[in-house]
């Protein structure tokens, strides 16, 4: 589905925000200013931005854990400061500082990121089930990595979504790796989307480094889902520039990933690719892009200030006990 210039600009804006937010998270983790772990998104920011920028507030989004879903959430219009505060253990966090790296923005229909890989699939069936019954054209954008498709839960969700023609997009961000393992070794065919064939589900494979190409496929799948024509499988081929999570070695199998692999990867940098397209097509100038980056950096300054100035969450156990059950 062809993109308008406004749409392209939105994608560009979010892509730059995503890049800067990821840098900020990486830096803070290294500075000891984040709780738990962080799975850096460098090189892999385009798919989440493309999948999430054109969702409505009342569409469901399950962000991928890469970059801790920030690329997705900021594109959907969620204010990241509440998540950063959460990730810093603060009272102002979106989960009151209880959840470490988890998040929840129910009003945006971003309910959670499970610590268990593949735990997006089954709830997505439930969201799709509810959306279908409601008949308001809502869709479910269900993002996760190539590795998550090892989980049998993926099969159950693909099966049920296709049986019931649910408005779900199975959005696979295939960076070719899960921790140290390669998709080449862990999946028998070159594409994860081969699975869709088994269910007769339409699928598309796109260049995950090109935010516009991914977005076009997403818009098409979203339109299909909104029209009641059922699920789509989209596989965005992307890359993981860094180690799996900060502190873990950067192995392939059990050996360091090669310099050559790194060099080849870094030649496919998503912001550089998008910038080139924007400048060539002429709907942005270099100064426009610099303004976008400045705006992103200002936003991040505010987000960090909010998190850093908030108090550490240390409620007494008795108070916590009150929150175990809903009234």
């Amino acid at each position, binding site marked *: 589905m062809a993109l308008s210039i406004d749409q392209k600009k939105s994608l560009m804006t979010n892509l730059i925000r995503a890049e800067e937010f990821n840098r900020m998270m990486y830096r803070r983790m290294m500075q000891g200013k984040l709780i738990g772990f962080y799975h850096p998104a460098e090189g892999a920011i385009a798919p989440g931005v493309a999948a999430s920028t054109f969702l409505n507030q009342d569409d469901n989004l399950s962000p991928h854990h890469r970059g801790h879903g920030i690329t997705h959430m900021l594109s959907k219009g969620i204010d990241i400061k509440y998540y950063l505060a959460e990730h810093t253990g603060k009272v102002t966090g979106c989960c009151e500082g209880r959840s470490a790296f988890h998040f929840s923005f129910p009003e945006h229909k971003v309910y959670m990121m499970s610590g268990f890989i593949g735990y997006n699939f089954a709830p997505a*069936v439930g969201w799709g089930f509810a959306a279908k019954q409601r008949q308001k054209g809502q869709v479910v954008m269900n993002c996760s990595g190539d590795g998550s498709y090892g989980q049998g*839960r993926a099969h159950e969700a693909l099966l*049920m979504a296709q049986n019931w023609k649910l408005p779900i997009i199975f959005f696979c961000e295939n960076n070719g790796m899960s921790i140290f393992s390669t998709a080449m070794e862990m999946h028998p065919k070159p594409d994860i989307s081969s699975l869709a064939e088994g269910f007769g589900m339409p699928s598309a494979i796109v260049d995950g480094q090109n935010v516009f190409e991914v977005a076009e496929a997403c818009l098409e799948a979203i339109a299909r889902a909104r029209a009641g024509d059922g699920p789509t499988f989209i596989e965005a081929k992307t890359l993981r520039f860094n180690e799996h999570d900060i502190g873990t070695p950067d192995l392939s199998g059990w050996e360091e990933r090669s310099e050559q692999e790194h060099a080849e990867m870094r030649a496919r940098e998503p912001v550089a690719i998008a910038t080139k397209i924007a400048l060539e097509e002429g709907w942005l100038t270099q100064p426009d892009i610099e303004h976008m980056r400045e705006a992103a950096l200002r936003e991040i300054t505010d987000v960090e200030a909010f998190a850093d100035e908030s108090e550490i969450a240390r409620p007494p156990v008795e108070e916590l006990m009150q929150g175990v059950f809903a009234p």
Partner: protein
Amino acid sequence: MRTITLTDAIREAIEEEMRVDSSVFVVGQDVRGAIFPHTKGLVEEFGTDRVVDTPIAESGMYGVAFGAAQEGMRPIVDFMFGGFSYVTFSECSVTTGQYHFLHGSQHALPIVITAGVGTGQRLANDHAMSIHGTFAHHPGIKVAMPSTPYDAKGMFKAAIRDNNPVVIPWHMGIMMLKGEVPDIGDDYIVPLGVADVKRVGSDVTVLANSLQLQHALSVAEKLAPEISVEVIDPRSFVPFDMETLLTSLEKTNRLVIVDEDWESGGFAATVSARVVEQGFDLLDAPILRVTLPNMPVPGGYMEEYVAPNPERIEAAIREVCL
């Protein structure tokens, strides 16, 4: 009042709540055709959008309930046999129990989880396991089990109206048990977290639930000339009504806990430990537990004497009353 069976009482609760609240629905495997009587006929009244069969895919099936609950619906998910909840146990326990609390207590997750449980069908471990104790180990989930048709209807209604995940299995050994239930139209609930003194006594307290409650009551009746047995049905395991139990112990000073779950890690151990912590001075004798021994539940004829039964309950009562 009418006299109906336990599973009919459950069906009435589901039907009535479905009528008044369009967000309530049932999801499971073969719930339309109804493997057990409590979903029989629902599909005719409510249609396939609200009485939903899934493939044999417990995680996906539970996902329908979980995701729909996040979307504001009130699913009742039926696992057929309790053991099948284990097929997607991480979702039922960890993911479910942590959802509300971990995310800042901002979003409720109203799910009712039900299934038939228990010994008596000679089907062996995987079809005979109890699940209440395992769920009660995992925080954020309410756990209850009815012992009479009256309680079944009232507790299922309470569970469906609760804003939390509630695991409420029913025991296959009493599925055809008949009892008095208020007339249709007389709406009532039995609140979760309130125990019930099913028989008043003064020498010893027996805590028992479901099929085992029936056993305890028959033993109490038999022993009446010799020993005055107070029989308490906890009804809920989470939240657990400690007050009713301690009040009884103030009178009897003796406790036998009957629980159709394993000795190791079962709920009976938790009750015993709590009583020791909170009511040590009330005890004139050790608390005894009548439970499943720590072996997989055998099928065949062994089930009868491996599971708790009236003989074992009587022996425990006599021992604490020595």
